[in-house]
Structures are given as structure tokens and as C-alpha cells.
């Protein structure tokens, strides 16, 4: 009796242990919200085109059209993982699964399992919108920009620095993120186009109702088929066009000529420059203080406004800005000295000059001169120090170096 009860406990324990060892579920690229509102037949079209051109997480397809280094086969490489075409994409995915997936999600949708604990939320790459880049306006970032974000992390957010992974692995990750973003944007545009062509369940019901009024005999299926036939007929052309657009966009981002650089040296950050910068900051032309507040604390009057929802005539229920992804966003408190895109003068220059894509931060007026932009930057960089002194290498100015040490040591 004793033996049998013992063996039952053992068997029970073993079966429990074995049940825990099953294969994890197959990873999938979750469909975008733009695709899930389509009628099932159109959804199938979208997912079939995606699987054909981009594959599934376990069986990636490297679409050669795009400007991504997928990794040419290296049959003589000592690492067997490099023997086949597209090894860089596969290695990038492996690293992404380890380091990025838990926040950014399998499809790069910013909906990984840990994402819901985070504020700000992890980036959803699928719209191809990036905030931290050297290029102006809505242009894509360069690979070097993605690289930099991975190396530096984003201070003030949960994005950590991956500098210790080393150049090569960071390069693999940057390319995989680029590929995910292209895949996501391709899906969004494709599904969005079909939605505009009337293939969403809602639109279809509407057109069915309209058609019924003139022709009582028409069936729901006939209306659906008519729309889908049009979409199917144009599909090959649409796919090529979308892919071409994305290729052009990313190539433009990569073009060194499109990276923003100042045409004038940084103005010496002395008290006069800071004072000029402050004046611009508060001025009616440049209007920084409308959002960032007169003291740069991110509490300007605009933060109390009700913002209109994009593509709608309604406003959000609560005041305050929203970013491109619909998340609440506040103007940066510039007195804290935490700079998400980096603290180099060039980083701040780019933010002031280009604005921040995907956020309400606009590019500065083009009536403002280069020197004036530097004045604003110098003022912003002085805010963490009470507006008295701007962040600078100091001694290069050749004066006050010693005095500053004494003063700082005394404080």
C-alpha cells in the first residue's frame, strides 16, 4: 500500500514536470489593427502577401528589394550559421528574440509581455515613424541612427543601452529592426489601402445598403466580390508600388546628404548667447515656451489644451498632447538634464532645427538663423544649471577654468 501511494505521487510529479517541458507556441507576427478590421477575405489577401514576401518568425523571407544587408552566404565561414543566404537577418532575429522582444513584441508592435508595465510605452515600429534620428521631418532614420539608439539607450525611458553587445551584434539588431519596420509599414499601407477601397466590414455594409436602394436583387456576396475583385486585380501592382516607396524612403534616410548638420559652428555658450537664446525661447516667433513653459519645466499653457484626434472631429477627453501613436506625451522638462536623443550639442541642434517626428514638437521657423538656433541650444543646455552656465567643455574657452573649480568646490 505504502509503495503504491509513493509511486502514484512520483508518477504525478513526473507528469507535471513533463507537461511543463512542452514546445512553446509557434511565434507569429500579430496582424496590425488596420488588417483586423478588414473582411476575412481581404485579411487573407494581406496575410498571404506578407507570408509570401516576409515569411513567418521561424521562416523569414529576405525580400532583396529592400536596402538591407541580409548577409550573403559565406560557405567557408567557421560559423555554420553563416553558410546560407540571409544569415544576418536570422542572427538579428535571434538577438531580437533575446533582448528586444519582451518589450517591442514579435512583430515590432511595441506590445511585448513587459510593455504594459512601461511608461513611456515601447516603440511600435510598424508605422515606420522614428523619433530619434539625424534626418529631417518624416524621413526615415539612417542605420547609424538606429545604431546610436541601441548603443546609448534612451535616458529617461526603459530603453537600456546595449553597448556591451559589441558593434557586430548591434549592427545585426539594427538591420532586423529596420526589416521589421519595413514589414510592418508594408502591412499597414497594404491593409490601409484595402480599407480605403472599401474592404472593411463596416464600409462593406454601408455600400451594400447603398446598392440595395437602387437594385433590390443584389446580394451581399456580390458587393463583396466586386470590391475584392478590384483589389485582387491591382494587387501585384500595389505590392510593387508599396515596396518601391519603402525602398525609396529608407534609401533617402540612408543618404548622408539628408542628415542634418549645422552650417555654422556652435556659438560660444557665454552669458550673452544664453540671454539671446532665452529671448528667442520666450518670443512669439519661436514659441518654445508655449509648450515647454517660461522656465523650461515642460508646463507651458499649450499643455492645458484639448487636442483633436487625428482623422476625426472629436477631441480627446483629457487635456494634453498626444503623440503619433495616440499616447499622452508631455513637453520635456528641460531643467532635468535628461536628453533622450543624447546630450551632444549636435543632438540638441537637430531637435530644435528639425523638431521631433511623431510628436507635437515642430521644426523651428526657417526665418531663424543658424546662430540663433545655437543660441536656443545654449539656453536649453543652461537650464539644468539655473540658466547661469551652459553645458560646455569649459577650459577650451581659456578662461575661468580655475576659478570655476574653486567656485564649484566651495558650493
Amino acid at each position, binding site marked *: 500500500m505504502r509503495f503504491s501511494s509513493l509511486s502514484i505521487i512520483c508518477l504525478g510529479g513526473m507528469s507535471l514536470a513533463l507537461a511543463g517541458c512542452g514546445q512553446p507556441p509557434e511565434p507569429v507576427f500579430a496582424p496590425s489593427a488596420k488588417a483586423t478590421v478588414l473582411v476575412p477575405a481581404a485579411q487573407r489577401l494581406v496575410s498571404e502577401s506578407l507570408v509570401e514576401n516576409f515569411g513567418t518568425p521561424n521562416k523569414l523571407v529576405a525580400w532583396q528589394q529592400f536596402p538591407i544587408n541580409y548577409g550573403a552566404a559565406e560557405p567557408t565561414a567557421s560559423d555554420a550559421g553563416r553558410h546560407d543566404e540571409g544569415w544576418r537577418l536570422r542572427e538579428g532575429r535571434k538577438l531580437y528574440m533575446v533582448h528586444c522582444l519582451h518589450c517591442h513584441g514579435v512583430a515590432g508592435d511595441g506590445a511585448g509581455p513587459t510593455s504594459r508595465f512601461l511608461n513611456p510605452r515601447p516603440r511600435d515600429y510598424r508605422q515606420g515613424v522614428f523619433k530619434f534620428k539625424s534626418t529631417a521631418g518624416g524621413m526615415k532614420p539612417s542605420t547609424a541612427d538606429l545604431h546610436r539608439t541601441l548603443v546609448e*539607450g534612451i535616458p529617461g525611458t526603459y530603453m*537600456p543601452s546595449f*553597448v556591451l553587445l559589441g558593434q557586430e551584434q548591434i549592427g545585426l539588431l539594427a538591420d532586423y529592426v529596420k526589416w521589421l519596420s519595413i514589414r510592418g509599414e508594408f502591412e499597414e499601407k497594404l491593409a490601409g489601402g484595402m480599407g480605403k477601397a472599401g474592404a472593411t466590414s463596416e464600409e462593406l455594409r454601408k455600400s451594400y445598403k447603398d446598392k440595395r436602394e437602387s437594385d433590390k436583387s443584389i446580394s451581399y456576396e456580390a458587393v463583396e466580390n466586386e470590391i475584392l475583385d478590384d483589389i485582387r486585380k491591382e494587387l501585384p501592382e500595389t505590392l510593387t508600388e508599396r515596396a518601391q516607396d519603402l525602398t525609396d524612403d529608407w534609401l533617402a534616410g540612408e543618404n548622408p546628404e539628408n542628415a542634418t548638420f*549645422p552650417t555654422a559652428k*556652435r556659438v560660444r555658450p557665454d552669458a550673452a548667447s544664453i540671454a539671446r537664446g532665452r529671448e528667442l525661447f520666450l518670443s512669439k516667433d519661436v514659441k518654445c515656451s508655449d509648450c515647454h513653459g517660461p522656465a523650461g519645466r515642460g508646463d507651458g499653457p499649450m499643455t492645458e489644451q484639448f487636442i483633436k484626434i487625428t482623422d476625426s472631429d472629436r477631441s480627446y477627453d483629457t487635456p494634453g498632447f498626444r503623440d503619433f501613436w495616440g499616447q499622452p506625451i508631455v513637453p520635456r522638462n528641460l531643467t532635468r538634464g535628461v536628453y533622450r536623443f543624447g546630450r551632444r550639442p549636435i543632438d540638441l541642434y537637430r531637435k530644435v532645427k528639425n523638431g521631433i517626428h511623431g510628436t507635437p514638437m515642430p521644426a523651428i521657423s526657417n526665418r531663424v538663423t543658424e546662430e540663433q538656433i545655437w543660441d536656443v541650444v545654449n539656453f536649453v543646455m543652461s537650464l539644468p544649471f539655473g540658466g547661469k552656465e551652459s553645458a560646455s567643455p569649459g577650459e577650451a574657452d581659456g578662461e575661468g577654468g580655475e576659478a570655476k573649480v574653486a567656485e*564649484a568646490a566651495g558650493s
Partner: protein
Amino acid sequence: MNRFWCLFFVASAVLAVVFFYIGPACGWWFPGVAASPLGQQIDDLFYLILAITGVTFIGVHAVLGYILWKFSGKEGKRSDFQHGSHTLEVVWSIVPAGVLLFIALYQMDVWAAFRMKSRFDQEALANPIAEVTARQFEWRIRYPAPGKVLQDTPQPDDLYTVNDLHAPAGKPVVIKLRSEDVLHSFFLPHLRVKQDAVPGLVIPVWFEANEPKAYDLVCAELCGWGHYKMRGQLTAQPQADFDAYMKKLKETQFDDGFKEAADE
């Protein structure tokens, strides 16, 4: 079954002897050679305690085995009852207490060298190389500008890096440790340095790397879901290389991007 427990305890004593003999040669469980002078002293303490506990373990098991062998039950003999031995109890209380007291006093010097500010290298303490701020889940590092002294609050010419701490090798250096959010622990395993980072406190920590090379820096306090990825690196380098590194860092951080445009 009669002799089973007897053999069991003797066997553990024998096994312990075997493992103590072959363990260090095979590199099992032992921490390897410390990469700092203080680390060596900490290791010496570790081996001292290991020797004390090892001898005690083997002795206790040998005696247990012997007693079980000698006094194991015999057919037809009833055991007799004894209340205990006062002398024996006093002996086995006093002896371990004495050993503990010895360890407590013996380690005080190493502890003081690691923790007491008055025992720190005073020059290093007056010129901390950096402020290391732990946050979920990275190490943010703030250096004073070359030639300046680290201040408690950020200065306009401070230099910043993340996860990548550089320090001169071969001399004691001090960092100031802080935490931005929760408890973390600054752990340099090869240097045997471990110090909790406590929100609201600025804790000076000193270490000295013998050789110029890269050492692991990890978080040794479960600080949240990303604890495992809170990895950093300490790069110890000769003073000249360290100065060059700081100079380069300064150039990079105050880059206004203008020269690059002129090159094109």
C-alpha cells in the same frame, strides 16, 4: 541496515577529503584568483573559514561514524537512558563560540579596509573618478571633466557614459554609488567588491584592479524584471590610456557636428 548510517557518515567524511583534495585543481566552485589586493585578502578569509568548517565537518562525520559503529544496537540488549553531560555541553558551546569570536576579530581589519572611510586611500577618496547611478536596468556614469573634482550635483562640463566604466589600473580608485529608483548592488565579482546602491544615499566605494583589462560589472540585487540584463563593464587601463579615453569622451560629448559638414 545496521551499519548503513555508520558507513553513510564515514563516506561523507571521506568524500569531503577527496573533494577538498581534487577540487582546487579542477577549478570546482572556487572563485579563482582575485584581481585586486583587497580581493586577495577577502579570499584568504574565505579559505580560512573553509578550512575551519572543512576540518569540523570531517571531524564530526568521522566521530559520528565511529560512534554509530561502536554503539549500534545488539540483539537482546536494551538501551539505557542518560540525562546528559553538563561538562560536554559547556565544551561544545564554548569551543564554537571561541572560533566565531576569533573569526569576528580576525576579519575586522579587512572589513575596515573595505568599508571604513578613514581607511580609504585619502587621495582617491578626495578625487572620486565617477558617480555611478544605478537605474532599472543600466548603470549611468558621470565623470568630472578632466582635471576637475567630482561634485555632488551635475556640472556643465561633466562627461557621461552608460554601462561602460573606465578606471585607471594599479591604484585605488573611488566611485560614488547612487540609485535612481530601487535597491541595486554594484558587484565586481573578479575584484570581490559588492556594495548595495540605496536610493537617497551616496555611497563611496573603492576598488583597485591589478591588471589593465575588462572586468564584469553586474547587479547583485534582484531589482526588477530586467535585473538579468543589468550588465556593465569595468575597463581598467593604464593612467595614460585612461586620460586619452577621457579626452576622447569630452570631444565626442561636446561635438557640435560642424566639422563633419566641412569634410563633405
